[in-house]
């Protein structure tokens, strides 16, 4: 616990210094790392422990992005971010009440379906009612403000994960992941815990979306509800080890760097590498990369 906090603040300090000496490209790379670190850490804190595989991250991200774009003119920066998170969380409560009684593939497919539904609904609304396809954000904060906000979100996501591990709420989620019915018969109000955890995950994704909308300055449903954001979050968390604290974080940094460097030159190679790694991890390393330990490797070598 103490060691986790020390590592976290060490990393945060280093990330904090980045805009002062890094080039524009490095800072943009850093922002992308922080974005996926927040998304996959917050995804793991619910989905990793309860084993409910949600594909709705894009929906919450997009809702946050649209909220940010709509209110930034009227509300201060931090209020816009908070509202993005809050609206995403409320949508998650409604979605959660509708689908969290389903498990496994059914839950995953339905969260994905609802994401698509939300995306198409917003596209329709924009075309029919507002008469636009996208929105341009004219008043945006400085680059360093955006970066700093994302850093705070990433640190908060990890802090919340650390705190949850030691709380009754975290224990309840772990119980749901291990044997939901058994947890119920021991007194866990599973519906409350699941909806609460799902909303917490969504709040982070919504806040991240609101931050990224100003970074992109132009948003339309196809970009902010891009299912790839959700898939990549899930892949990063699973490859890193969704049940661990640092796995998703480390994988987020590695994959953001890989994505930025490979995507420009060899986009197919990046996607294939991601897919291959996922298969290898699911088959041979179900605990993710973070489950690799020196003793395990030593034991394997002796065989």
């Amino acid at each position, binding site marked *: 616990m103490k060691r986790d906090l020390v590592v976290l603040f060490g990393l945060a300090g280093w990330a904090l210094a980045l805009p002062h000496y890094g080039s524009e490209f490095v800072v943009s790379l850093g922002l992308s790392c922080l974005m996926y670190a927040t998304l996959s850490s917050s995804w793991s804190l619910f989905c990793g422990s309860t084993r409910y595989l949600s594909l709705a991250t894009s929906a919450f991200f997009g809702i946050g992005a649209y909220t940010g774009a709509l209110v930034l003119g009227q509300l201060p920066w931090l209020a816009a971010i908070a509202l993005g998170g809050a609206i995403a969380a409320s949508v998650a409560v409604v979605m959660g009440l509708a689908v969290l009684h389903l498990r496994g593939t059914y839950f995953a497919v339905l969260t994905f379906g609802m994401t698509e539904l939300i995306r198409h609904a917003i596209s329709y609304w924009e075309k029919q009612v507002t008469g636009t396809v996208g929105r341009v954000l004219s008043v945006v904060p400085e680059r360093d403000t955006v970066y700093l906000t994302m850093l705070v979100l990433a640190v908060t996501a990890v802090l919340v994960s650390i705190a949850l591990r030691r709380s*009754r709420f975290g*224990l*309840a989620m*772990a*119980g749901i992941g*291990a*044997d939901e*019915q*058994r*947890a*119920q*018969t*021991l*007194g*866990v*109000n*599973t*519906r409350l815990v699941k909806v609460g955890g799902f909303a917490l995950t969504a709040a982070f994704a919504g806040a991240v979306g609101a931050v990224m909308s100003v970074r992109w300055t132009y948003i339309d449903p196809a970009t902010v509800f891009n299912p790839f954001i959700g898939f990549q979050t899930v892949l990063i968390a699973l490859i890193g080890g969704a049940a661990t604290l640092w796995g998703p974080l480390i994988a987020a940094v590695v994959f953001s760097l890989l994505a930025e460097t490979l995507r420009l030159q060899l986009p197919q190679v990046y996607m294939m590498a991601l897919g291959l790694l996922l298969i290898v991890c699911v088959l041979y390393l179900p605990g993710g990369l973070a489950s690799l330990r020196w003793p395990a490797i030593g034991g394997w070598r002796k065989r």
Partner: protein
Amino acid sequence: MNGHPLLEARELTVRFGGLTAVDAVSAAFAPAELVGIIGPNGAGKTTFFNALSGVVVPTSGELFASGRRLTGARPHRYAQQGIARTFQTPRVFAELSVGANIDFGLQFAGRRRPATGLLKDEASILQLIGLAAQRALPAAAITPSQQRLLEIGMALATRPKLLLLDEVAAGLTENEVEAMAQLIRRLRDELELTVIWIEHAVTTLMRHVERVIVLHQGRKIADGLPSEVVRNAEVVEAYLGDEMAEAA
């Protein structure tokens, strides 16, 4: 005790499609009773338990805990009302330590109840079920018979008033069965717990319970003292035969 039984089922019926697993069963359980439920395979014993613990919602009929209606409530409410259960195949949290498995119930349903005596804390419960030495081991690493004890310990950690035991003696050696029966009597005697105990091995059960309910094809065909039930013509004819007469 406001004159109400601790747990009462009225005309409880559970149907799965065309199959009636539990057919209009009524039964009441008083504080500190030790009741056995017997019946051949498929008699509806486990489904009856599932309904009594809220795991299955009854198709019709009512359930009351100390006079309070519980029908249709979700399982955690049953646990909060002091109804705890074990499952036929132990469902312990395999990755958690034995101690953490006990702690789980204490953290949830057990939290709002007075922490006294044998159920005071994790250590006292481990002592009671005889797993104090295994406290730090992962639950996956202990033997199947120890897992059965742990399963009971997890239920006890909710600090219940009533304990539903589903075939806790199945697959145990003779000595282990005897030790299990001693533990169950002790829970009743010292904690004044109502215990409802399903067991397939009729002879074992009959020696230890004070009242027995017989289910057959989902219906309750007898309810009384073991010595009376074994002489009940319908029971003998339905399935028990000689095995039961010997037990008596």
